[in-house]
Protein backbone atom coordinates (compact mmCIF):
# COMPACT_ATOMS: atom_id res chain seq x y z
CA UNK A 1 0.00 0.00 0.00
CA UNK A 2 2.92 2.35 -0.55
CA UNK A 3 2.12 3.11 -4.20
CA UNK A 4 -0.78 5.34 -5.03
CA UNK A 5 -2.02 7.11 -8.15
CA UNK A 6 0.98 7.66 -10.48
CA UNK A 7 2.44 11.15 -10.69
CA UNK A 8 1.61 11.36 -14.40
CA UNK A 9 -2.11 10.82 -13.70
CA UNK A 10 -2.00 13.40 -10.88
CA UNK A 11 -0.35 15.80 -13.29
CA UNK A 12 -3.06 15.23 -15.91
CA UNK A 13 -5.84 15.70 -13.36
CA UNK A 14 -4.35 18.94 -12.05
CA UNK A 15 -3.67 20.32 -15.55
CA UNK A 16 -7.22 19.51 -16.67
CA UNK A 17 -8.72 21.05 -13.54
CA UNK A 18 -6.60 24.19 -13.90
CA UNK A 19 -7.50 24.49 -17.61
CA UNK A 20 -11.21 24.13 -16.86
CA UNK A 21 -11.05 26.80 -14.16
CA UNK A 22 -9.02 29.01 -16.50
CA UNK A 23 -11.62 28.55 -19.26
CA UNK A 24 -14.36 29.54 -16.86
CA UNK A 25 -12.45 32.63 -15.77
CA UNK A 26 -11.59 33.80 -19.27
CA UNK A 27 -14.76 32.90 -21.12
CA UNK A 28 -17.26 34.20 -18.60
CA UNK A 29 -18.63 37.03 -20.74
CA UNK A 30 -20.82 38.85 -18.27
CA UNK A 31 -19.18 40.40 -15.25
CA UNK A 32 -21.39 39.93 -12.25
CA UNK A 33 -21.30 38.75 -8.67
CA UNK A 34 -23.24 35.60 -9.57
CA UNK A 35 -20.60 34.70 -12.18
CA UNK A 36 -17.83 35.13 -9.62
CA UNK A 37 -19.78 32.93 -7.19
CA UNK A 38 -20.30 30.31 -9.92
CA UNK A 39 -16.55 30.24 -10.68
CA UNK A 40 -15.84 29.96 -6.95
CA UNK A 41 -18.27 27.06 -6.46
CA UNK A 42 -16.93 25.27 -9.56
CA UNK A 43 -13.34 25.63 -8.33
CA UNK A 44 -14.29 24.41 -4.85
CA UNK A 45 -16.04 21.35 -6.37
CA UNK A 46 -13.01 20.40 -8.44
CA UNK A 47 -10.74 20.87 -5.42
CA UNK A 48 -13.07 18.69 -3.32
CA UNK A 49 -13.03 15.93 -5.97
CA UNK A 50 -9.21 15.98 -6.17
CA UNK A 51 -8.88 16.07 -2.37
CA UNK A 52 -11.20 13.05 -2.06
CA UNK A 53 -9.02 11.10 -4.49
CA UNK A 54 -5.94 12.14 -2.49
CA UNK A 55 -7.53 11.05 0.81
CA UNK A 56 -8.65 7.66 -0.55
CA UNK A 57 -5.32 7.08 -2.27
CA UNK A 58 -3.55 6.26 1.00
CA UNK A 59 -5.96 4.44 3.37
CA UNK A 60 -3.65 4.66 6.40
CA UNK A 61 -3.29 8.42 6.59
CA UNK A 62 -5.44 11.56 6.37
CA UNK A 63 -9.09 12.11 7.29
CA UNK A 64 -10.57 8.81 6.05
CA UNK A 65 -7.82 6.59 7.45
CA UNK A 66 -8.62 3.00 8.40
CA UNK A 67 -8.44 2.51 12.15
CA UNK A 68 -6.84 -0.41 14.02
CA UNK A 69 -10.15 -0.96 15.88
CA UNK A 70 -10.51 -4.56 14.66
CA UNK A 71 -6.98 -5.38 15.80
CA UNK A 72 -7.74 -3.84 19.21
CA UNK A 73 -10.84 -6.04 19.45
CA UNK A 74 -8.83 -9.16 18.57
CA UNK A 75 -6.14 -8.19 21.11
CA UNK A 76 -8.81 -7.87 23.82
CA UNK A 77 -10.12 -11.36 23.00
CA UNK A 78 -6.59 -12.81 23.12
CA UNK A 79 -5.96 -11.05 26.46
CA UNK A 80 -9.19 -12.54 27.82
CA UNK A 81 -8.07 -16.04 26.78
CA UNK A 82 -4.67 -15.48 28.45
CA UNK A 83 -6.34 -14.21 31.62
CA UNK A 84 -8.74 -17.21 31.65
CA UNK A 85 -5.76 -19.55 31.34
CA UNK A 86 -3.98 -17.87 34.26
CA UNK A 87 -7.14 -17.93 36.37
CA UNK A 88 -7.78 -21.64 35.84
CA UNK A 89 -4.09 -22.60 36.16
CA UNK A 90 -2.52 -25.03 33.76
CA UNK A 91 -4.98 -26.73 31.46
CA UNK A 92 -4.82 -30.48 31.62
CA UNK A 93 -3.93 -32.13 28.32
CA UNK A 94 -7.10 -33.27 26.54
Amino acid at each position, binding site marked *: *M*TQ*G*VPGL*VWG*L*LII*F*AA*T*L*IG*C*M*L*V*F*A*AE*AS*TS*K*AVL*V*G*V*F*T*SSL*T*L*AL*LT*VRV*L*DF*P*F*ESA*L*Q*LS*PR*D*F*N*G*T*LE*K*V*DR*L*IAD*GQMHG*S*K*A*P*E
Partner: protein
Amino acid sequence: MLGTGLVAAFICALLHRIVHRDTFRRYHEVGYAVFLQLGVIFAVLLAFVFNNVWSNYDVASQAIDSECGSLHGVAILSDRLPSPARDAILNDLHAYLTIVIDQEWADMQRRNESRAADAKFQSLWHTVETVNTDLADNQIRGQMLSLLKAVKQDCIR
Protein backbone atom coordinates in the same frame (compact mmCIF):
# COMPACT_ATOMS: atom_id res chain seq x y z
CA MET B 1 -11.18 23.89 -0.60
CA LEU B 2 -13.13 27.03 0.34
CA GLY B 3 -9.94 29.03 -0.05
CA THR B 4 -9.47 27.94 -3.68
CA GLY B 5 -13.10 28.85 -4.39
CA LEU B 6 -12.68 32.30 -2.86
CA VAL B 7 -9.41 32.91 -4.72
CA ALA B 8 -11.04 31.87 -8.04
CA ALA B 9 -14.04 34.15 -7.41
CA PHE B 10 -11.68 37.01 -6.55
CA ILE B 11 -9.59 36.45 -9.72
CA CYS B 12 -12.82 36.33 -11.78
CA ALA B 13 -13.98 39.67 -10.38
CA LEU B 14 -10.51 41.16 -10.84
CA LEU B 15 -10.24 39.98 -14.48
CA HIS B 16 -13.54 41.60 -15.35
CA ARG B 17 -12.29 44.87 -13.92
CA ILE B 18 -8.98 44.75 -15.82
CA VAL B 19 -9.94 43.23 -19.20
CA HIS B 20 -12.50 44.87 -21.44
CA ARG B 21 -15.87 43.10 -21.82
CA ASP B 22 -15.59 42.88 -25.65
CA THR B 23 -12.41 40.84 -25.36
CA PHE B 24 -14.31 38.22 -23.35
CA ARG B 25 -17.23 38.26 -25.83
CA ARG B 26 -14.87 37.56 -28.77
CA TYR B 27 -13.73 34.23 -27.26
CA HIS B 28 -16.96 33.23 -25.60
CA GLU B 29 -18.38 31.02 -28.42
CA VAL B 30 -15.28 28.90 -29.04
CA GLY B 31 -14.38 28.87 -25.36
CA TYR B 32 -17.70 27.34 -24.43
CA ALA B 33 -17.19 24.38 -26.82
CA VAL B 34 -13.62 23.79 -25.61
CA PHE B 35 -14.79 23.95 -22.00
CA LEU B 36 -17.44 21.24 -22.61
CA GLN B 37 -15.03 18.87 -24.34
CA LEU B 38 -12.32 19.32 -21.72
CA GLY B 39 -14.96 18.83 -19.04
CA VAL B 40 -15.99 15.45 -20.47
CA ILE B 41 -12.37 14.23 -20.74
CA PHE B 42 -11.66 15.39 -17.18
CA ALA B 43 -14.82 13.68 -15.87
CA VAL B 44 -13.93 10.35 -17.51
CA LEU B 45 -10.34 10.49 -16.20
CA LEU B 46 -11.52 11.42 -12.71
CA ALA B 47 -14.09 8.60 -12.73
CA PHE B 48 -11.41 6.00 -13.60
CA VAL B 49 -9.03 7.28 -10.95
CA PHE B 50 -11.77 7.52 -8.32
CA ASN B 51 -12.94 3.98 -9.05
CA ASN B 52 -9.37 2.72 -8.71
CA VAL B 53 -8.61 4.43 -5.39
CA TRP B 54 -12.01 3.48 -3.95
CA SER B 55 -11.42 -0.19 -4.88
CA ASN B 56 -7.99 -0.11 -3.22
CA TYR B 57 -9.48 1.44 -0.10
CA ASP B 58 -12.14 -1.26 0.01
CA VAL B 59 -9.56 -4.03 -0.48
CA ALA B 60 -7.48 -2.64 2.40
CA SER B 61 -10.54 -2.52 4.66
CA GLN B 62 -11.57 -6.10 3.82
CA ALA B 63 -8.00 -7.36 4.27
CA ILE B 64 -7.98 -5.97 7.82
CA ASP B 65 -11.30 -7.70 8.61
CA SER B 66 -10.08 -10.95 7.17
CA GLU B 67 -6.70 -10.80 8.97
CA CYS B 68 -8.38 -10.13 12.32
CA GLY B 69 -10.81 -13.01 11.71
CA SER B 70 -7.97 -15.41 10.97
CA LEU B 71 -5.96 -14.29 14.03
CA HIS B 72 -9.03 -14.72 16.23
CA GLY B 73 -9.43 -18.21 14.76
CA VAL B 74 -5.83 -19.02 15.72
CA ALA B 75 -6.52 -17.79 19.27
CA ILE B 76 -9.64 -19.98 19.61
CA LEU B 77 -7.85 -23.04 18.25
CA SER B 78 -4.84 -22.51 20.52
CA ASP B 79 -7.22 -22.43 23.49
CA ARG B 80 -8.00 -26.09 22.79
CA LEU B 81 -4.35 -27.11 23.26
CA PRO B 82 -2.77 -28.13 26.60
CA SER B 83 -1.15 -25.42 28.69
CA PRO B 84 2.48 -24.93 27.61
CA ALA B 85 1.61 -24.91 23.90
CA ARG B 86 -1.51 -22.80 24.42
CA ASP B 87 0.34 -20.18 26.47
CA ALA B 88 3.24 -19.97 24.03
CA ILE B 89 0.96 -19.39 21.04
CA LEU B 90 -1.32 -16.91 22.83
CA ASN B 91 1.68 -14.92 24.12
CA ASP B 92 3.17 -14.73 20.61
CA LEU B 93 -0.20 -13.71 19.22
CA HIS B 94 -0.47 -11.00 21.87
CA ALA B 95 3.03 -9.73 21.00
CA TYR B 96 2.23 -9.67 17.26
CA LEU B 97 -1.06 -7.79 17.74
CA THR B 98 0.60 -5.28 20.07
CA ILE B 99 3.34 -4.58 17.53
CA VAL B 100 0.77 -4.17 14.73
CA ILE B 101 -1.29 -1.65 16.76
CA ASP B 102 1.56 0.29 18.37
CA GLN B 103 4.20 0.25 15.68
CA GLU B 104 3.09 -1.04 12.29
CA TRP B 105 0.07 1.26 12.09
CA ALA B 106 2.24 4.30 12.71
CA ASP B 107 4.76 3.04 10.14
CA MET B 108 2.02 2.60 7.54
CA GLN B 109 0.84 6.16 8.18
CA ARG B 110 4.34 7.18 7.14
CA ARG B 111 4.09 4.79 4.15
CA ASN B 112 6.77 2.48 5.54
CA GLU B 113 6.78 -1.25 6.13
CA SER B 114 7.32 -2.61 9.62
CA ARG B 115 10.09 -5.17 9.93
CA ALA B 116 9.30 -5.65 13.62
CA ALA B 117 5.78 -6.84 12.77
CA ASP B 118 7.16 -9.18 10.11
CA ALA B 119 9.63 -10.60 12.64
CA LYS B 120 6.87 -11.12 15.22
CA PHE B 121 4.70 -12.86 12.63
CA GLN B 122 7.60 -15.19 11.73
CA SER B 123 8.07 -15.88 15.42
CA LEU B 124 4.35 -16.72 15.80
CA TRP B 125 4.49 -19.00 12.76
CA HIS B 126 7.61 -20.73 14.15
CA THR B 127 5.96 -21.24 17.54
CA VAL B 128 2.83 -22.79 16.01
CA GLU B 129 4.97 -24.99 13.79
CA THR B 130 7.34 -26.27 16.47
CA VAL B 131 5.40 -26.19 19.72
CA ASN B 132 5.14 -29.57 21.45
CA THR B 133 1.69 -31.09 21.19
CA ASP B 134 0.18 -34.56 21.18
CA LEU B 135 -0.23 -36.36 17.90
CA ALA B 136 -3.99 -35.94 18.34
CA ASP B 137 -3.53 -32.16 18.30
CA ASN B 138 -1.71 -32.13 14.97
CA GLN B 139 -4.98 -31.43 13.18
CA ILE B 140 -5.41 -28.25 15.25
CA ARG B 141 -1.85 -27.24 14.42
CA GLY B 142 -2.61 -27.75 10.71
CA GLN B 143 -5.72 -25.57 10.96
CA MET B 144 -3.78 -22.84 12.77
CA LEU B 145 -1.05 -22.92 10.11
CA SER B 146 -3.65 -22.55 7.33
CA LEU B 147 -5.16 -19.57 9.15
CA LEU B 148 -1.71 -18.01 9.52
CA LYS B 149 -1.11 -18.61 5.80
CA ALA B 150 -4.36 -16.74 5.12
CA VAL B 151 -3.12 -13.90 7.36
CA LYS B 152 0.07 -13.72 5.31
CA GLN B 153 -1.93 -13.64 2.06
CA ASP B 154 -4.33 -10.99 3.39
CA CYS B 155 -1.44 -8.83 4.51
CA ILE B 156 -1.76 -5.65 2.42
CA ARG B 157 1.40 -3.93 3.55
